[in-house]
């Protein structure tokens, strides 16, 4: 066989023609997309839906809670102011100016209204002209005159007044609560200064975390308490106070909002006006901190959702890959079986045809031979023939004989290929058997410069088989291996045997010849397929091998790399198929009288 291709090939490669890699890649992608769409999409939809719903719900809840907290705080501040105003009112209503302007009495009153809390810094009694009648406190204010002070005028006018923060004579930010009381024809004023520090800590006594701040602004936008970050007491705040309506307003300030001065993170802000004085309570907190718990819960939810999606994705990829591989394997097996079936079917029909054709050719051949013999006899009986004519005639008759025998050889090979004969089954030890065949072929191989390398496994178990068919098989394969080196000055044929599991015996015949072209691999077992030149091969050798191996219940596989060589791997089971065995036993029982040579003679022809 002429073999000169580069690609290594194997006849049993069954990648499913038409079902190559792209087909399985497409199948894989389709499975993955379908599975992912059916699993990931609902998971993510539900997950994100729950996440969005829960977030909105939790945000509302948080804002409400914030609002309530701020409102309560407002009430607390108002209560504080109302209570301290009431304390002053109570003292003023129950005591006379004469009593209170005595230093000791005022000190007592101061102690009583403070109730040990130091919520008042000082207490003073002032007459209707603005002069201090008595004073208890840390500052030296007894000689001060307040007749021009705004608060003095207001309290004289309204009877009660809570001032904004101001510096006053003491030059320290503070605010005062003053009540005026008419006594006889005169009025006097009881004035208390609220402890700024105590008031500040009261105002800030609301949970605002690390980033929050709380402060009070008056109607002009002046800080009434020191905010944590936004400025200082008595300074003008960069904060609009125009919305002076009642109720709590809660704002969600986006990052960088103009309402914020230097701060950029997103914030929530609540503001509410106190009743008296007209101060605005402002509570601010970074959104991130206010919603920290919610965000944390949200992040965990999202992590779980996406982790599940990721697991699903990997599970899908893995399971799909596994599934596609299983399908691929099944396809390959089916393909392999189909090819085998096809080959078997082809062989069977070719076998039938061969037997018929051989018979039909044998009869005319027999007639040709008899005609030739008649001519030969005639020549022998006619001595007067022209010598030249006689020589020519004898040469032609000899050629007829040669060609008839060539045809006979062909028909016998055909019959051997299709034979349904009864042969002998007996235990065959493959190793000595192969050694015999090698010995038989060594002369021919040596002439072609080919060496045999045998690696025969020791203690190889015997198989039950038909020796004559095995001999035919090995002779054909080894002849082929030798022929494969045609054109090479030297070569080698490696013959290797080994036991395969517990099922049978494997024999490998590998040559270093010219290899088989990939496009020829599928055809080499077909009858009459040959790449040898005309007259050199009938194309039946490997077909007969195939038929024999199948009959003996074995397998034959071929691997070939053009230019490098061809390897035939044969497998024979320890026992041949039941039907073969049954058929093989028959002649032993029934035709005991027939000598073996007769069978050999006919079969081997």
């Amino acid at each position, binding site marked *: 066989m002429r073999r000169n291709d580069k690609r290594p090939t194997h006849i049993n490669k069954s990648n499913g023609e038409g079902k190559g890699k792209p087909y399985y890649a497409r199948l894989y992608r389709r499975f993955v997309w379908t599975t992912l769409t059916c699993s990931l999409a609902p998971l993510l939809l539900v997950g994100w839906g729950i996440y969005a719903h829960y977030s909105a719900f939790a945000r509302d809840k948080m804002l409400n809670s914030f609002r309530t907290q701020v409102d309560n705080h407002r009430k607390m501040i108002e209560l504080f102011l109302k209570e301290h105003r009431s304390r002053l009112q109570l003292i003023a209503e129950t005591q006379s100016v004469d009593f209170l302007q005595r230093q000791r009495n005022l000190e007592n009153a101061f102690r009583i209204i403070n109730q040990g809390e130091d919520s008042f810094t000082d207490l003073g009694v002032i007459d209707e002209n603005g002069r201090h009648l008595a004073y208890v406190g840390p500052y030296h204010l007894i000689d001060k005159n307040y007749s021009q002070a705004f608060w003095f005028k207001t309290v004289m006018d309204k009877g009660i007044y809570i001032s904004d923060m101001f510096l006053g004579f003491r030059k320290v930010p503070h605010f005062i609560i003053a009540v005026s009381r008419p006594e006889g024809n005169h009025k006097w004023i009881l004035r208390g200064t609220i402890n700024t520090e105590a008031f500040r800590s009261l105002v800030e006594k609301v949970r605002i975390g690390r980033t929050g701040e709380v402060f009070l602004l008056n109607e002009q936008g002046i800080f009434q308490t020191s905010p944590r970050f936004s400025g200082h007491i008595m300074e003008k705040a960069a904060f609009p106070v125009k919305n002076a309506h009642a109720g709590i307003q809660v704002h969600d300030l986006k990052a960088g909002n103009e309402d914020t001065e230097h701060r950029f993170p997103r914030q929530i802000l609540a503001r509410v006006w106190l009743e008296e004085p007209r101060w605005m309570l402002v509570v601010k907190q970074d959104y991130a901190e206010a919603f920290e718990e919610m965000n944390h819960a949200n992040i965990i939810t999202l992590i779980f959702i996406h982790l599940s999606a990721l697991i699903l994705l990997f599970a899908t990829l893995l399971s799909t890959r596994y599934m596609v591989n299983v399908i691929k394997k099944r396809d390959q097996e089916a393909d392999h079986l189909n090819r085998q079936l096809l080959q078997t079917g082809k062989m069977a029909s070719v076998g039938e045809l061969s*037997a018929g054709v051989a*018979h039909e050719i*044998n009869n005319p*051949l*027999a007639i040709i*031979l008899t005609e030739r013999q*008649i001519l030969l006899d005639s020549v022998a009986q006619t001595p007067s023939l022209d010598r030249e004519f006689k020589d020519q005639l004898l040469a032609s008759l000899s050629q007829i004989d040669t060609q008839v025998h060539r045809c006979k050889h062909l028909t016998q090979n055909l019959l051997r290929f299709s034979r349904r004969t009864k042969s002998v089954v007996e235990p065959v030890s493959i190793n000595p058997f192969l050694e015999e065949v090698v010995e038989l072929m060594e002369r021919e191989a040596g002439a072609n410069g080919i060496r045999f390398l045998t690696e025969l496994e020791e203690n190889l178990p015997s198989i039950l088989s038909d020796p004559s068919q095995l001999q035919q098989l090995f002779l054909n394969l080894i002849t082929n291996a030798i022929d494969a080196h045609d054109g090479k000055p030297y070569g080698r044929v490696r013959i290797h045997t080994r036991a395969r599991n517990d099922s049978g015996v494997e024999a490998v015949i590998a040559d270093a010849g010219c290899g088989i072209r990939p496009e020829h691999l599928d055809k080499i077992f077909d009858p009459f397929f040959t790449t040898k030149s005309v007259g050199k091969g009938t194309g039946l050798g490997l077909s007969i091998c195939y038929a024999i191996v199948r009959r003996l219940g074995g397998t034959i596989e071929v691997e070939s790399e053009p230019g490098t060589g061809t390897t035939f791997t044969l497998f024979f089971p320890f026992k041949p198929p039941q039907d073969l065995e049954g058929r093989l036993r028959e002649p032993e029982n029934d035709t005991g009288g027939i000598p073996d040579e007769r*069978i050999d003679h006919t079969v081997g022809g």
Partner: protein
Amino acid sequence: MRGSTILLVDDEKVFTSNMSKLLTSRGYRVSAVNDGDSAIRALQENSYDVVVLDLKMPGMDGITTLKEVKKLGLFTETLILTGHGSIDTALDALKLGAYDYLTKPCEIDDLVEKIEGAWKKKDREEQRDMQQKIQKVVESPSAAFTLFGRKKDKKKA
């Protein structure tokens, strides 16, 4: 042996005619028929030493013909000459008592050799049969009636 009588049975007329010529020129007395029925008739009318029988014939095939021939109980050996692929059939023929078989195409010398073998066997059997009959005549002179009878008469006896 020269002078042996041979019956050729083959549906190929050219073949039988050629083979007749060849065998005749080799000293045999040859008759040729082209189907099984004619063969049986020929055997009933004349005696032949060797029958050369084709297996695949239209009408009565070789195997059936062989069975019929055997039924006749003659001292005749049958040689199978077939172009048929099935060696099983040839083996069946051997089981039915054919002497041997050859596959077509075959050399005339091979055929002659087989014919000679068949003739010798036939001759041996005839001799043995004769001796047995003589023995019987010696033991019981009344048996002399069957001396020249046929095999089947012997079986009846």
